[in-house]
């Protein structure tokens, strides 16, 4: 009984020499309940475990249903009420709207670029984090990763406004050598930069456990077979880290696609993403119909991107088993 520990139970026939622990009684009771579970319903257990999470996300589904309903109705601007009749007018209007198309491509391109950059930068960070011998460096890197989480998106964006502004640090430094001042903010690259630095901690957090799970011996084995450092990384480590890379890509892609704060703060008002359009419709023009339509399109896009990434990852990514 080494696994369960504790003192041995009473032997048959003799009065117990030790008390039967309360924790054991509870466990026995639970086992008895579990034993009642019909063998045929074995498969239902997995659904039972999944249930709470499904219910939690179900709270969002309610909102989606309400929005789907709203998206099929048109706003009357004389009474500011959504019309009663159903039609696809909002969607038709959306797909004929130039600003929507411009914003759509802008958001998709950003998703691609930011994901790529984040993966490229997160890899060395996570690699250093998991492979370094120095505990001190590891702690510094970990703390440095967590602090941005605590500071939050908005405050960090304002920090960059101060650093990159006309009178900010960068322009001050350039001014010392007689250059500038340059307009570094309020452009598409500025938004991309802001997104990369915001998403980087997420990417590292997703990637690091995967890298940590790859034993160092494998790299040494590859080296002893004659593979160069680069080859080892590319041919051995990266493929083995695939689940982590996919997870990182998933997080960064979906969060970038739906981001609203960075384009708003660093974009200067001319680099809106789809989420900003949704924001405008719900808050500025009070058109819940059009806003819901854009939100649903965005959700569909995000789900498609996620679906593609998961399909590319194949079975086994994110800990979801196929056949076992």
């Amino acid at each position, binding site marked *: 009984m080494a696994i369960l520990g504790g003192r041995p139970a009473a032997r048959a026939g003799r009065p117990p020499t030790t008390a039967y622990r309360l924790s054991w009684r509870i466990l026995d009771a639970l086992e008895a309940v579990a034993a009642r579970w019909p063998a045929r319903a074995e498969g239902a257990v997995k659904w039972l475990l999944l249930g709470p999470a499904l219910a939690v996300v179900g709270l969002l589904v309610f909102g989606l249903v309400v929005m789907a309903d709203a998206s099929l109705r048109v706003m009357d601007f004389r*009474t500011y009420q959504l019309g009663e009749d159903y039609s696809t007018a909002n969607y038709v209007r959306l797909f004929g709207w130039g600003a929507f198309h411009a914003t759509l491509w802008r958001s998709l391109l950003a998703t691609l670029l930011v994901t790529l950059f984040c993966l490229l930068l997160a890899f060395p960070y996570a690699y250093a984090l998991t492979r370094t011998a120095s505990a001190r460096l590891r702690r510094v890197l970990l703390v440095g990763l967590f602090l941005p989480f605590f500071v939050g998106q908005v405050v960090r964006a304002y920090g960059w406004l101060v650093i990159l502004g*006309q009178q900010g640090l960068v322009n001050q430094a350039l001014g010392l050598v007689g250059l500038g001042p340059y307009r570094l903010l309020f452009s598409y690259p500025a938004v991309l930069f802001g997104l990369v630095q915001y998403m980087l901690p997420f990417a590292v957090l997703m990637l690091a456990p995967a890298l940590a799970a790859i034993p160092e011996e494998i790299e040494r084995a590859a080296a002893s077979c004659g593979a160069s450092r680069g080859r080892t990384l590319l041919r051995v480590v990266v493929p083995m880290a695939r689940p982590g890379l996919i997870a990182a890509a998933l997080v960064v892609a979906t969060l970038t696609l739906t981001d609203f704060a960075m384009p708003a703060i660093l974009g200067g*008002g001319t680099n809106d993403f789809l989420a900003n359009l949704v924001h405008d419709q719900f*808050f500025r023009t*009070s058109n819940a119909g059009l806003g819901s339509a854009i939100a649903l399109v965005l959700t569909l896009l995000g789900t498609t991107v996620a679906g593609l990434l998961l399909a590319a990852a194949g079975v086994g990514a994110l800990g979801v088993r196929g056949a076992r």
Partner: protein
Amino acid sequence: MSEPSFSTSRRRLLGGATALGAGLAMPAILRAQEPAKPAELIVRAWGGVWVDSLKKGVSDPFTAKTGIAIRHDLTEDNEIKPRIWAAVAQGRVPPIHVNWDTTANATSSALRGVCEDLSDLPNLATVLPLAKPIGLTGVPIVNLYSYVYVLAYRPEAFPGGPPTSWNVLLEPRFKGRIALYNDGIGFHPVAQVLGGGKIADIPGNMEPCWAFIRKLKEQKPLLGEDPDFTNWFQKGEIDVACTISSNAREAKAKGVNVAWTVPKEGAKVDTDGMWIPKGLPANELYWAKRYIDFALSTEAQQVWLDGLGLPGVAPGLKPPADLVGDPSYPTSEKDYERLILIPPKIQAEHTAEWFARFKEIMQS
């Protein structure tokens, strides 16, 4: 349909009803029947100098008079709107008692029918007709002051003296250094004139307006909201902007060298007001009305609006020393002649469409 609504409204801005006698004090007998006082009232306000001056001029004196504490909610006006609408639609108590809002924004709520009627406020009898919005049934919103969307500029960029025309926005040397509101607000009538059109054509034919804005897009303007303008002037990011005079005045108070003017083509004037969402318990509704009534009094407006440098609707107000004769502080018929007011109902009905066109041009 001959006369455009604009000249009517301009006359109404000034017309009769100057001081109709001293404030109407509440007769003692009615005071005895006042409903129970709530512990606090929640008033939505914009942050920074806006809430500070409201506190000083209206909220703190109100608390001193009635003993009811005022809590200020700094949620943006457009962010609280869907929450109020949802509360009314679901039959719940709204999140705030009093909404200090732009008249344009408030009109959409009024059209939807979520505002309490305020026609029984005593002080409404003594204030400028401007206080009652045009074209709406009853008094769902009480307008409290007006403001002008001026041309704010850095004097260092204009050594030859203040600019005389809005066309300076198109000068190549200001590329990337001009700023507008990110929904185009405050600029449509001006753009219409600059594009070669007429004010009377709004909203029927706005093509001249869009033509001018397309030209403006080449100048790579920065688009933002009130606090952005102050920050941008402070940080030297812009030289010219179309913004409310109080933002420029605030930057100036912070030591930034900025001035403003109303160019020859004119400028848009608009109002802000307060309204009460439906669904409040009867006693809270009563005291919320008393709050707005107090905000209409000369005593409150003098202190409150001095902090903002904006002309109010109460009788007998004196402009702050630095704004006497300033075009952004209209006090006489002559001052108002150069200003353009679009009736809030027209704005409310067309804002979505104008917003979409503006975005279309600016985001492409």
